[in-house]
């Protein structure tokens, strides 16, 4: 009888220990996702802030390319608006902005004065590094989301996850392939 009680107590302690450890592990993984998303947001915000400067700097040279500039400005406005609609939709809007920017830089290749302008070059470098950092932050974000999603879906941590309402998180989708980037009409 005493032995039975002892086993019961040991089992209870192990079970409680497992619950606490698993719960804390899940919370930690979820915090890492929020931190990684924060890192992306900072870069996206920086890109949104840089774009008006770039548009102003190139406007004078590229008066015949109004449609390219308009597309960048619109894509920026869309991306800012999409920020409130979750990572998946935000990723789509940001990818469109990336595409629009690439078109702009491709067209800018046709304007030698533009390529000689220090201010434009500096802005282009800023945007390139911001875009690269968005890409690398996104890799990191997707890795931590995968880690979290795997642990809430697999046994035994899924028991704890189900009990405390841990839900699956969305990935920040990969960049569009080169062929999906809008085509540029060169004059």
């Amino acid at each position, binding site marked *: 009888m005493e032995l039975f009680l002892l086993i019961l107590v040991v089992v209870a302690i192990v079970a409680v220990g497992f619950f606490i450890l698993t719960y804390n592990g899940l919370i930690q993984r979820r915090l890492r996702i929020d931190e990684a998303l924060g*890192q992306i947001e900072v870069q996206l915000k920086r890109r949104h802030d840089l774009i008006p400067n770039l548009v102003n700097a190139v406007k004078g040279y590229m008066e015949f390319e109004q449609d390219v500039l308009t597309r960048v400005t619109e894509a920026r406005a869309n991306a800012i608006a999409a920020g409130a609609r979750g990572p998946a939709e935000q990723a789509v809007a940001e990818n469109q902005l990336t595409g629009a920017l690439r078109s702009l830089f491709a067209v800018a290749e046709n304007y030698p004065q533009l390529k000689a302008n220090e201010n434009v070059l*500096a802005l282009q*470098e*800023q945007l*390139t*590094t911001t875009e*690269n*950092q968005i890409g*690398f*932050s996104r*890799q*990191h974000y997707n890795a931590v989301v995968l880690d979290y999603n795997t642990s809430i879906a697999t046994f035994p941590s899924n028991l704890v996850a189900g009990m405390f309402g841990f839900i699956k998180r969305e990935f920040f989708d990969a960049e569009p392939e080169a062929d999906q980037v809008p085509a540029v009409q060169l004059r």
Partner: protein
Amino acid sequence: MATTFYHQIAANKRNSLLLSTVVIALFAVLGLAIGYAWTASGPGSVFVMIGALALGLVIAGGSYFAGDGLVISASQAHPVDETTEPQLVNVVREMSVAANVPMPKVYITEDSAPNAFATGRDPKHASVVVTRGLLDKLDREELQGVLAHEMSHVRNYDIRYTLLVGVLVGSIALLADMFLRSVFWGGVGRSRGRGEGGGAGGAIIMVLALMLAILAPIIARLVQLAVSRQREYLADASAVDLTRNPHGLERALEKIAVDREVLEVANRATQHLYFTNPIKKWEERSSGLWSTHPPIVERINRLRSLTGQAPLDRDGVLGLEGLD
């Protein structure tokens, strides 16, 4: 990949501790032998041993906390920031985001030979040094490949281990040299003349100490070699994993391979830190078999195999033949 670099971090921390312990113990033994050679008395030997032990601790501690500063000033590098070198600093920041480590300090050595290295005791206290030649000769994508390689050294704690190896290997050689000189210049003979010799036991200690003093620098140098070759391949692989792009790094290696400029500030104590071996084969100070780096062609071919390209022929590539 993830498990690989966690293993690498654990191994580097373990090896750093092991190396420091072994070196400090070697200091103690060599100190005892020097003490014996000088004084030929028990208390005298112990006194010198304690001195050497303290010196060993100071050197190990000093290289752990201040070795990076020493290496950076030896490479005659000056710090740069966003306003002076925007592109370099931006690329370093990108790679620190990719490797998920804090932003390291960035330095430039004003030398036209393209090369780079990273140093520091951990990712929170890390520095990246590149030469002016690297910035001038590589495009942005190639620079990114090189810095991804350096950032892998930072993330994997290679920097801690290689820093300790550099300083400790140097100081072992110095101490062993000191001991051999003290024996050579008749310390032992003088004490024997005073009739205080330690007898057979003392003679055995002396022989062992002599052997140790001769072998220690060689062993230390072998440790320096063994640690670096494998580490370079691993850092190349990690760099591709970070950038998801083998081409930048591959082209950077190709450009550096055919570059004939010589990096004057590099020496045998710091050569194992660099991106590619700064001491080139045709230089007089090169030491063939004792190379700290794998052959560049081999590194390029490992990257080419990732993208399914045919390997370069080691002997057939003009301009690469002198490389290491």
